């Protein structure tokens, strides 16, 4: 933000659309930089905690499950199942938890005209996404080099599945950032809700394993379960029978994103200034 102040405010008067988009990207970038510092400081490994936190989660859970559970479940390797399930789950939970009261904490930033609530929340979620993705890469490298899992059979499918999860996470976090700003009750219960939503995310099952009668719960109400299913279908190839619909994921994610962006643009009057 320091260099922002040096620049004259006149530079930002009456911008064209492309210029304002560039400004917005600069603001988001600056906010990400600021967030890494305010959250992790310069002590010990500093901003590397961005990766450190999720890697402790993903790595720890993966190691625990690999040790405790049988090595194969329904013919799939336990480690691969945990990694493909836990990475999106950690992303989803952390993003939603980070989005609660995101504005109240950063309300002092809104003093600057160039910083909008949407920028703040986008910066937060993006930081989370970057952290989880790097952690995922490290866990994947570790597990593969130790021989506990194989590389995906179809990278494109795996990555696009993850992409859908990321997209949906943005939208749902936008919505939660607004709702928690309006409702204190929701703010207090968000961590419980994300925990209760665990089965709904389908992180630890394949939809094919559950009785056909109940498949619709994951197949047609949970975009995350769809995304994870898509990732696994790319990961395991023909060893699994995937149940996902790109159409469903696209529409739910787009709608969530639309509502989320709309709410974020309308949140300013409801932010408690601290």
């Amino acid at each position, binding site marked *: 933000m320091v260099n922002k102040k040096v620049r004259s405010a006149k530079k930002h008067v009456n911008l064209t*659309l492309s*210029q*304002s988009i560039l400004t917005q990207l600069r603001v988001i970038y600056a906010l990400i930089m600021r967030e890494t510092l305010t959250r992790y400081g310069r002590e010990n490994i500093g901003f590397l905690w961005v990766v450190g936190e999720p890697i402790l989660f993903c790595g720890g859970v993966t190691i625990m499950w690999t040790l405790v559970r049988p090595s194969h479940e329904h013919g799939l390797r336990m480690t691969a199942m945990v990694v493909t399930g836990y990475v999106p789950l950690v992303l989803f939970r952390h993003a939603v938890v980070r989005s609660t009261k995101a504005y109240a904490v950063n309300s002092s930033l809104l003093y600057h005209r160039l910083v909008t609530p949407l920028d703040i929340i986008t910066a937060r979620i993006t930081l989370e996404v970057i952290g989880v993705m790097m952690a995922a890469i490290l866990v994947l490298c570790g597990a593969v080099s130790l021989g506990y899992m194989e590389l995906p059979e179809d990278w494109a499918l795996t990555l696009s599945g993850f992409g859908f999860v990321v997209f949906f996470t943005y939208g749902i976090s936008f919505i939660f950032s607004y709702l928690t700003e309006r409702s204190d009750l929701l703010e207090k219960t968000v961590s419980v809700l994300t925990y209760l939503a665990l089965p709904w995310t389908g992180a630890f099952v394949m939809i094919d394993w559950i009785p*056909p009668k109940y498949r619709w719960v994951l197949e047609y109400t949970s975009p995350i379960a769809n995304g994870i299913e898509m990732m696994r279908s790319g990961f395991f190839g023909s060893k699994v029978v995937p149940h996902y619909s790109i159409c469903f994921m696209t529409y739910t994610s787009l709608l969530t994103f639309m509502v989320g962006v709309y709410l974020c643009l309308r949140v300013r009057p409801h932010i408690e200034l601290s």
Partner: protein
Amino acid sequence: MVGLLEANHGGTQDTYAVQDYMMSRDALRMLIQKVDLRAVFSRSYADFLAKFPSIVTRNDFESFYSFYLTHVKAQIDEETGISHLKVRTFSAEDSQKVAQALLDAGEKLVNEMNDRQRYNTLHAVQSELDVTLKELHETEMQLAAYRYSNETIDPMKQAVPMMGTALSLEATLSMMEAEKKQLDLTAPHSPLRKVYAQRIASIQTQMKNAQAHITGHEMNSGSLVPKLLGYDELAVKKTIIEKKLAAETTALEMAKAQADRQMLYVTVVAQPSLPDYAAYPRTAVFIVLTFITMLIFYVIGSLLVSGAKEHTLQ
């Protein structure tokens, strides 16, 4: 256009075989030959984007195959075990024709699988049986050769009368000896004693000969013991082979019965129908969907733009 088929006999993997075949390049080649699939998909009235080859597809077999996969679908309903065949072409008659050809080919495939399975099951058992029969024949021949070379039919049976002879000789001998002893006591100088002595001696030689014939140790004595040994070996072998033969005959009968039971069928639950109006494209659905999608994109776009616009100061 929906045809339904079912493989009888619970094994769904056979149903998968039919399904996989219908979605394979082999089936495509068959269709190109039988119903001229290239022509079906390049009718003059088909629109230039949807037909094959169109301006967006290459004109080779692989592209045609991926085109085929989007127009023909064979899916198994996991719960009922019935598979559904859907064929989409540019006219109702074509669709029906293609579906019928696919069903016929599926039936042919199942029949081939049946024949193969029957052959595999029966062939193994039958060849075992043949081998055993041959073994039996060989053993019989060996036995015959043995009989020729040893001039004996059954040494055991032969031994019985020879033993009888030996026994009667022994009885005669003991009688003679008793008589001679009596003569020794009552008339020590009788000339008959010499006669008796000679008789006893000749009977003893006879006995020795008879014994040698049955259990003699010297070679060329014509003893039955070595003959019996060789004969017994062959006889036991023959009994074993006969038992094996009996078991294998039963197995063959069972295999035949099983093969008859395992026959697969393609049962056409519903014949390919001839739709009386075009089911595709679903115009209304597509228009509504396009409208909604564009609306979503427009709203998101305008929201993002207004979000970006907040970064310009007035």
